[in-house]
């Protein structure tokens, strides 16, 4: 199994807003394993959170809604607006909701894509304002999705 309990705990701490605990747990992760397992967890969490935010009752959001979301999180980032490239962020979300091709997203540098997934995932989950129970259920779901990637 490529996803470990430690990786899940690190993600859980981040999404629950426990920054110090998240940092400590992240530092304790086995780097080689984290490259696979933790990356898969983040990807699954981003995918799930983006789907929930931009596909509601089967209705897929239009591009304007995606532009609005990315513009909002960048504007809130104050001096860190340059951390997110709006074109990359928008295309990654549009890819999740089936509005852009795989090729466009595959052309992104893996490290840049991972960085954008982390920021977008955190913003999407923050906006969702999960209760503790909802966050627990979300984590169970994304762990299962991430593990599916390795089967």
């Amino acid at each position: 199994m490529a996803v470990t309990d430690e990786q899940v705990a690190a993600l859980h701490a981040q999404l629950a807003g426990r920054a110090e605990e998240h940092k400590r747990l992240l530092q304790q992760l086995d780097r080689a394993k984290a490259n696979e397992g933790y990356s898969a967890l983040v990807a699954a969490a981003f995918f799930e959170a983006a789907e929930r935010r931009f596909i509601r009752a089967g209705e897929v959001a239009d591009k304007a809604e995606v532009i609005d979301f990315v513009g909002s999180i960048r504007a809130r980032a104050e001096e860190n607006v340059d951390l997110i490239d709006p074109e990359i962020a928008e295309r990654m979300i549009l890819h999740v909701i089936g509005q852009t091709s795989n090729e466009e997203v595959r052309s992104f540098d893996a490290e840049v894509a991972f960085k954008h997934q982390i920021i977008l995932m955190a913003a999407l989950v923050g906006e969702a304002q999960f209760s503790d129970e909802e966050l627990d259920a979300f984590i169970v779901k994304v762990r299962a999705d991430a593990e599916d990637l390795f089967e």
Partner: protein
Amino acid sequence: MDWAAVKIDDDHAAALRAFLDGDVETWEDLYSRMTTDEAAAGYMSMIYAGFVVAVRRRFSPTYTTPEIVRWVADLRMTLGDDGEQLNPRVTENLMRDVLGDPDLRSDDGIDDPYAVIPAQCAVLSELAAEVVIDEATLEEFIKDSVDFAEQWVSARQGQTREAAAPESVRRNADA
């Protein structure tokens, strides 16, 4: 391309006026007369000048970077499919560059004419609708844009002369 031969004239001012008025017929007529690189450079200098004047008038001196980010996102949402060729980061960076943003780290793309020209035109068009409210503000806007374009072309001509001067002349000038 001979910058020394570029001159901002009445046609360029009229072209900016037609652009701002959405007067496609006049614009096309003036555009068809711009058959040389030098005439086209004058026109693009005029569009750039209008862009600079509009951005400064709307955002300077109290702007924030998040305000620019939000404004560009709103512009792209308004334009819909027409905004497809607008690169958001290039658009933001062009505006931040004009405003002298000291935090501007990435200047990716702001020298790429395929990204820059649509961005300047879209921003100019949208902002002019905000800052030009009547005939008097239109006249003032065109005058300020002509003044800026003339200064900008003159600066380019100075750079070109300096680059072309023989080494001995540049040494004497520096002494």
